[in-house]
């Protein structure tokens, strides 16, 4: 199976809120000294791809739109077990909206391979839009399943376990298809071993520019004709915690119950 995994490099999304800073001009996060990582669910998507490859044979390609430093994210993907990687990088791409990104990814994927399966994260851990995956499916005219956690190949098709509010659905999709991946206990991303990290250095990373894809910079920001990002702000949290003290847990428990009764919530 030929599998493409779309991944994004972002600033560590798990830093505490107190260390989060915004650039007032660009309205984007200031990286500061924080680490760059592969967006959380994109690693789960890669894990799903690698498990499918182990079962079925085939090839896994990691693709990202990013700056030069995104090479590090691709190296990690290669160390985890991807066979090849593609960096799509050009200054105008930094400004691309989700539609622009989906178009660029679609072009790059078509140019490089004929995949059976394209995986995305269910949401990017920084911008959390949940848009790029379904947009990519529409760009490519392919079936789309979102929030899948497990994929079983069956009779030339796939069966995806899609997480829903009260359980899950098993959804059959014809191939090729686009699936966005959420986490569960079966797709916890593997940790590359030192040997894998060494081997990854020798694997190929292809660099693509916009000219290679025949995309005009003007077509990267079309969503702004409809919806404009006006502001990004850090919300103020005003809650002040009242600590329930006590010499023993029993005492704390009793005081808590009395306080909750006073507040009329129990």
């Amino acid at each position: 199976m030929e599998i493409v995994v779309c991944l994004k490099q972002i600033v560590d999304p798990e830093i505490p809120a107190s260390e989060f800073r915004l650039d007032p001009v660009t309205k984007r996060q200031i990286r500061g000294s924080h680490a760059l990582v592969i967006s959380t669910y994109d690693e789960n998507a890669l894990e799903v791809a690698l498990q499918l490859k182990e079962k079925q044979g085939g090839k896994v390609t990691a693709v990202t739109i990013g700056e030069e430093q995104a090479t590090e994210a691709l190296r990690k993907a290669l160390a985890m077990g991807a066979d090849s990687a593609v960096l799509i990088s050009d200054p105008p791409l930094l400004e691309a909206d989700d539609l622009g990104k989906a178009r660029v990814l679609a072009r790059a994927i078509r140019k490089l391979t004929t995949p059976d399966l394209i995986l995305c994260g269910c949401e990017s851990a920084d911008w959390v839009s949940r848009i790029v995956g379904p947009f990519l499916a529409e760009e490519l005219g392919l079936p789309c399943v979102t929030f899948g956690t497990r994929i079983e190949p069956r009779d030339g098709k796939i069966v995806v376990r899609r997480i829903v509010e009260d359980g899950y659905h098993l959804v059959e999709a014809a191939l090729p298809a686009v699936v966005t991946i959420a986490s569960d206990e079966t797709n916890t991303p593997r940790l590359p071993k030192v040997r894998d990290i060494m081997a990854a250095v020798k694997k190929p990373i292809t660099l693509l520019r916009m000219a290679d894809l025949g995309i005009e910079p003007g077509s990267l920001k079309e969503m702004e004709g409809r919806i404009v990002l006006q502001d990004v702000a850090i919300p103020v949290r005003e809650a002040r915690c009242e600590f329930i003290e006590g010499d023993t847990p029993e005492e704390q428990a009793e005081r808590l119950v009395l306080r909750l009764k006073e507040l009329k919530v129990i």
Partner: protein
Amino acid sequence: MATILVIAPAYEGHVGRTSLELLGGARRIGEARGMEVVAALLGKGAGAAASQMWQYGVKRVYVADHPSILLGELEAFYLASLEACRAANPGVVLLLADSVGREVGPRLAHRLGGGIVTECIDVQAGQDGEVTFLRPVYGGKAIATYRLVNFPVVVTVKPHTMEVPAEMPVSGETIPLELSMDPEGLKTRVLEVVSEEVTGVKLEDAPVVVGGGRGIGGPEGFQLLGELARLLKGAVGASRPPADAGWVPPTWQIGQTGKTIRPDLYIAVGISGATQHIAGVSGAKVVVAINKDPEAPIFKVAHLGVVADYRKVIPPLIQKIKEIVGT
């Protein structure tokens, strides 16, 4: 004249309460822009729900009552949504950001030209007709404001973030949508629907929720939380690590990727208070945090805090509730 279109599933004539919340946002935009709010109900047997929309002042209700639009059949739902857009000529399309809307919304927006705001938590409409949409970004560490510039746009709204509007009954009409859908030609198909059994109250409706985090240490600890929740006639939820580890089902996860809840009381146990978790509980009236680390960020958002090992404090808590409140 462009409309504000609310699209909702209505399998067997049942419209979920969260779908009615969309009408609140829709009405606000409609009033600011002088536009009519219309609804599209999609699903096998959807027609029976039209009167529910009339109850909330929606006169025109498009109905796609088709045997292929079944629970989880999102390809059919998507095709019916497109048909509804063709008929209703919407300026703004509202869908829930649930398992249906998060898949169908972006696909629909792509087809309509790309305008979309997902995971919206508030709609603001000014006197001057300016409409803005708010949504959390950066894992809830920031809020983005989007301004509506041109029609049409699709907006997906996070469940449990808007109020169901006041009723204002009208005598409405049902407009059937003609669908030429070949069930065999659908690109995806649901083979199996697996619903978890819920004993007691559902997490998203529970007035009291006890949430457990990584600090619970394993599936056994959740039994204790279950006991506490049952006593308070509530439900148990979790942060992401217990769900990822398989200690609890994924459907128990509360937060950005999981559920949004609005209980009167949320008791967070062994949860550090990451913004992605808090994103799901910010509507709770009272938040209690039980954590052994006094520096845990959860104490910055909780109203009441108990610094303790949960294993030591939950059993007496259960005991005291029985004594003081009764069962």
